[in-house]
C-alpha cells in the first residue's frame, strides 16, 4: 500500500470541505476522484500534496506518517502534483521550469544531469514547442503539458493530476490518456481528479466519489456506475447503465 488516508477532515471557517475521509491506494493503481464542483476533490489533493494541513486524521505514505511534512519535502519524497490552473514560472523558459523540479524535486542521486532528465520529461509528455520559449507565451494546452512534465521531472512515485484534461480536444485527450497509461507502466501510482466521466471510466482501476466533503462511494468503475447513491448525488438518475 503506497498511500493510506485515515479520518481526514478539513474545515474552512464554517464550511466543511472534507469530512472524515479514509482511503487506501495500492502501488501502481490509478484512482479516479469524482464529484460535483465544491465536493472537496482539489482540497483532498492539496491535503495529500501538503499544500493544506488537515484538521484531523493522518496520511501515511510508503508506510510512513507524512502529515507534518511540508509540500516541498513531500515532493522530494516522491509525491508530485499538477495544478487545476497551471502556475508556471512565467519568466522562465520551458526547460528551466522543468529543471527546477528535476533538480530540487528528485533527491535520488542519479547520474543523469538534470537538464537531460528535464528534456526527457518534456519528450515524454510530447511537448512539441521549443524548450527555450518563455512559459508566459504558452497557451493553456501547452501549459498543462508543461505542468505535467514538471510533475514527472521530480521522478514521482505518486502523481496527483488535477483536472488535467479540461479544455482538450478529443485528439489531445487520447494523447493524454496514453501518457498517463505510460506513466503508470513506469510504476507510478496516480490519482486523477476529472470531470470527464468517459476518461475516468476508461482509465481508472478504482473510483472514489466525493459529495460535499464526504466519501459516498468507492469501487471499480462498474460498481460506481451501478451505485444508487452516486447516481442520485452526482451522475443523475439517467446515468445508470
Amino acid at each position: 500500500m503506497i498511500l493510506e488516508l485515515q479520518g481526514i477532515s478539513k474545515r474552512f471557517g464554517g464550511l466543511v470541505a472534507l469530512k472524515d475521509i479514509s482511503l487506501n491506494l495500492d502501488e501502481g493503481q490509478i484512482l479516479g476522484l469524482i464529484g460535483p464542483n465544491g465536493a472537496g476533490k482539489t482540497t483532498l489533493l492539496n491535503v495529500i500534496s501538503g499544500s493544506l494541513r488537515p484538521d484531523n486524521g493522518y496520511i501515511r505514505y510508503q508506510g510512513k506518517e507524512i502529515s507534518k511534512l511540508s509540500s516541498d519535502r513531500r515532493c522530494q519524497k516522491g509525491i508530485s502534483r499538477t495544478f487545476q490552473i497551471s502556475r508556471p514560472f512565467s519568466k522562465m523558459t520551458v526547460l528551466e521550469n522543468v529543471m527546477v523540479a528535476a533538480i530540487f524535486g528528485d533527491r535520488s542521486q542519479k547520474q543523469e544531469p538534470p537538464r537531460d532528465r528535464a528534456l526527457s520529461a518534456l519528450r515524454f509528455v510530447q511537448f512539441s514547442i521549443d524548450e527555450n520559449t518563455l512559459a508566459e507565451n504558452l497557451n493553456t494546452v501547452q501549459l498543462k503539458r508543461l505542468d505535467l512534465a514538471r510533475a514527472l521531472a521530480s521522478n514521482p512515485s505518486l502523481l496527483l493530476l488535477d483536472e488535467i484534461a479540461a479544455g482538450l480536444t478529443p485528439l489531445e485527450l487520447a494523447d493524454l490518456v496514453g501518457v498517463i497509461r505510460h506513466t503508470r507502466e513506469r510504476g507510478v501510482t496516480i490519482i486523477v481528479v476529472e470531470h470527464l466521466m468517459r476518461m475516468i471510466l476508461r482509465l481508472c482501476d478504482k473510483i472514489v466519489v466525493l459529495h460535499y466533503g464526504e466519501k459516498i462511494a468507492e469501487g471499480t468503475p462498474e460498481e460506481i456506475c451501478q451505485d444508487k447513491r452516486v447516481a442520485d448525488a452526482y451522475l443523475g438518475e439517467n446515468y445508470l447503465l
Partner: protein
Amino acid sequence: MSTGGSHRWVVLSPLSLFLLAVLSVLPLWVQDEYLLQLLISSLLLGSQAMAFDFTAGFINVINFGFSAFVGAGAYTSALLVLHWGISPWLGPLGGAVASAALGFFSGVLTLRLQGIYAAVMTWFVGLTLLSLTASLSGLTRGYRGLNVPLFLETAARRPYFYIIFGVTFLTFVSLRWTGSSRVGLAFRAIGQNLESARASGVNPTKYRVINFTLSCAFAGLLGGFYAHFLGILTPDVMHSRQTVEVLALAYIGGRGSLWGGLVAAFIFVPLFEYLKPLMELRLVIYGVLLILVMIWCPGGLAAIYTQLKQQVRWPFMQR
C-alpha cells in the same frame, strides 16, 4: 549555439567582459580627478543596485531597508578599525559579516510575509537600524558624524578607482554566478510562484534566508568600502532616501538582470553630475524615470537591450 535561456554556466558574456575591460583601462586615459570621482560613485551605486536586485529581481521581495544594511556594514567596518585597530583592508569584511547576520535575521523576520508586507517589514527593520545608529551616540557620535580612517594616505583618486572596481567586479561575478547556478534557479522559482516552487521540491524558507543573507553581505561589504573611501559617516547613509536611489537604478536598469543597475548607474550618475545646473532636479528626474519605467517599460534597460538584440541579431543569423 548557446543553449538559450538565462541559465548559462558561463558567467560573463563576451560583451560584459569587453565593457569591464574598457572600464578597467579607462583611468589610464582619464586624468581628471573629478571624472574619476564620478566613475567611483557610479561603481559604488551600481554595485549596490546589483546587490539590491539580487533580492528584488530574483525572489521578488523589495528590501526597502537596503541602505540600512549598507550603513550597518559601513559603521561596523569603521568601528572595528577605530576601536580595535584592525586594518581598513579587513574592516569591510567585518562589515559584510555583520550585515550578513542582520540580513539573515531580516530574512527570518519576513519569512511569513508576502509582497508589500515583506517590503514594509524590511523598511521598519531599516528604520530601526537608523534610529539605533543615531541614538547610540556614544559609539557612533550620532549626527555629528564619525571620522573614518581611509585606505590610503593619498588624495589621488586613481588607486581608489581600482579598489572599488575590484569590489564591483567581485560583487558582479559572485552574484551573477550564484544567480545562474542551481541556487539562483531556486530563487527565481520562489520569486515567480511560491506554490509551484514548493510543488517542485524547492524549500522557500531556506532559499529566502540564503538570498537575504547574501544580498546583505554584499551590501555590508560595499558599505565598508564606502566608509573608508569617503572618510566620514553619518546615520544619513542609512536613510530610506538612499534606498530609493539604489532601487530606482535597479528598476530602471531592469529587474532581475543584475547588470542593468550597474549600467544605469554609469548612465545616470555622470549624467546628473554633468547637468550640474539641474542638480536640484536630479532626484526629480530619478523619480520621474522610475515612474515612467514602471508604467511604460517594466523590464527597464535590460528589456530594451533584449529587444534590440533580437531585432539586430536575426538578420545575421538568417544569412
